[in-house]
């Protein structure tokens, strides 16, 4: 195949303890460490490995997000992507609109494969890949833990509740990645510097002509309830008493 399109979302680093903004309208991102969504990084790593095996010739990374998402795209370029596209949107984009943006890019770029993370760790929606496959009218293989490409078919091992499922799909297709697919590579400083010279195209989201109707509105953001401190019980009888005390049994 010629091209692989990979989505890279800018998210709060997984190790940061997120806080709700003081206006209650979202989470605090000022001065907070941001990274590539970990599943997306895995998707990019897989795309690069496919390319390195000679099964693709170009890896394009795409981010829909604020201007700062250029940082994540630059990291993607440093890992080895060939070029980057930022669809700039100051406002968060819901999964369906995101899928429509990707469809527009798919129509322009005609990739043989779109690799996305199974979900972004900010909203945990787990929807974009499935929606894109549906509106594109192409096969999908979600939660991939192994991907094998032979010509125009892909054999994908999926992590499902009952174990592993292996399916074969025709390309072009959408594949979403799970945690065990691979371990993304480290990036070396010289590659970071070289990545600064690779093409990064910025298009305001409004210029795409994509319908941005949001299917839902956010009503409220609340931090999870604080866990109360545990108590030590002496023995099983003590445990039973404690549970009874709380009216749990």
């Amino acid at each position, binding site marked *: 195949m010629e091209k692989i399109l990979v989505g890279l979302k800018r998210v709060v*680093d997984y190790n940061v303890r997120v806080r709700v903004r003081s206006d209650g309208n979202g989470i605090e991102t000022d001065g907070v460490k941001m990274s590539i969504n970990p599943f997306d990084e895995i998707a990019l790593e897989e795309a690069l490995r496919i390319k390195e095996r000679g099964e693709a010739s170009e890896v394009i990374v795409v981010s829909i997000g604020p201007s700062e998402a250029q940082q994540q795209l630059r*990291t993607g370029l440093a890992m080895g992507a060939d070029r980057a596209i930022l669809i700039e949107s100051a406002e968060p984009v819901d999964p369906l609109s995101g899928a429509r943006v990707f469809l527009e890019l798919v129509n322009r770029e005609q990739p043989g494969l779109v690799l996305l993370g199974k979900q972004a760790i900010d909203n945990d929606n787990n929807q974009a890949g499935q929606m894109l496959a549906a509106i594109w009218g192409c096969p999908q293989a979600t939660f991939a833990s192994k991907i094998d490409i032979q010509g125009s078919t892909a054999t994908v091992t999926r992590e499902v509740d009952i174990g592993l499922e292996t399916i074969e799909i025709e390309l072009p297709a959408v594949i979403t990645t799970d945690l065990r697919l691979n371990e993304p590579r*480290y990036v070396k400083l010289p590659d970071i510097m070289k990545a600064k010279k690779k093409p990064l195209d910025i298009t305001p989201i409004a210029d795409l002509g994509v319908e941005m109707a949001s299917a839902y509105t956010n009503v409220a953001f609340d931090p999870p309830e604080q866990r109360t401190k545990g108590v030590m019980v002496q023995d099983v009888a003590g445990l039973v008493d404690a549970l009874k005390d709380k009216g749990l049994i």
Partner: protein
Amino acid sequence: MLLDQLKTIVGDKGWVTDPEALEPFLSEWRDSFHGRAAIVVMPGSSGEVAAVVRACAASGTSIVPQGGNTGLCGGAIPDATGTQVLLSLSRMNRIRALSPADYSMVVEAGCVLADVQAAAAEVDRLFPLSLAAEGSCQIGGNLSTNAGGTNVVRYGTAREQVLGLEVVLANGDIWDGLRTLRKDTSGYDIRQLFIGAEGTLGIITAASLRLFPRPGTLQTALVAVRDPQAAVDLFAVLRGRLSDQVQAFELISDRAMRYVLKHIPDTRCVFAEASPWYVLLEFSTSAAGEAVEHELLQVIESGLAQDVVLAKNSREQQQMWRIRHSISEAQKREGASLKHDVSVPVGAVGEFIVAAEKAILQTFPGARVVAFGHVGDGNVHFNVSQAKSADASHFLQQRDAMASLVYDIVAKFGGSFSAEHGIGALKRDALREYRSETEIAVMRAVKKALDPHNVMNPGKVL
């Protein structure tokens, strides 16, 4: 009699006498020290500590304070007589005050270091002391050993984090010096005496600590360098250009790296090709991330560094730190080892490592030097693993001979045979040998003045 008295003072929750339950308190992490004791008391308040001290002093019984028992020199382990009382601070683990506006907090001695860091982070402040044992060691132990760790290059040792102390003295008096002042010239600064005293002058029961603004985003990099001297030169260049942004600068030898990759699960190689030495570098960036990248590129171009990998997310940062923090654990799996926690002037680190390794190999053929440490502080953990074929106990018998060899070289460079782990029971002879009579005499005078009846952790330090 004394035992009953002590039990009454500390209450039911506050003591252990069951031999099996005592065991973890009586031996050290590395297993190199074992002691005996009939009781461990765990007072719940400074008042109880004071009462315990008075009771012990009255009966002429000496006390060994213990924090997280992660010390490496036997300081927290009682002697073999079984007559000493072990006093554990672990129940005194309250945070008494936390003031983000004042950039200070007051904590009890038994607070685990990681909990103190977390409490500070909770109010958007930094408590910078950080070491591999931070999940177990306690503030009281950290201050009593004047612990160092990985952030010293920017924030200084434990001593520099202390604004005030509360100490139970040898006569049972409680000195409340929990001030949070930055400036205070009212007489002798007596808190300094207790810091690094390893429990020989009094029992620290609480401390007021200095907090810092949280640094901007932290970046972590692993740098491949040719030799320790290149690491020293690299440090000089980066410190000069980035000044306070350098937060950690840790040297790791290839052998240390290999042992970690071999023995520690979930570690992985950062560079495809091995380098003889590595530096783990951490620096804070504000908006200036780009500037740092530029400086780093320059050090590659000038040949000081061979290659640099920058962590692109916190997962990779943790992976890099895991390598550094696992060295001791990995080295354990390679057989017996002898460790030397030494410091030399920062500029001499490179020369020292080369000279000491050469001397070791001449005298102990086949021994494997595993050197790593905080180059930014001139602190080298110059550890030596037994030859692969050698007999472990025979190797360990050479402890003193090897130590003298290493310490003599350290002395030639104007260094210290004890950089951050303290003296404890382990290095008393070295203290007498490498410090002047005048210096020892002053230490003895201080000890005599504060603890005339030798109740506080006798047999340690002096």
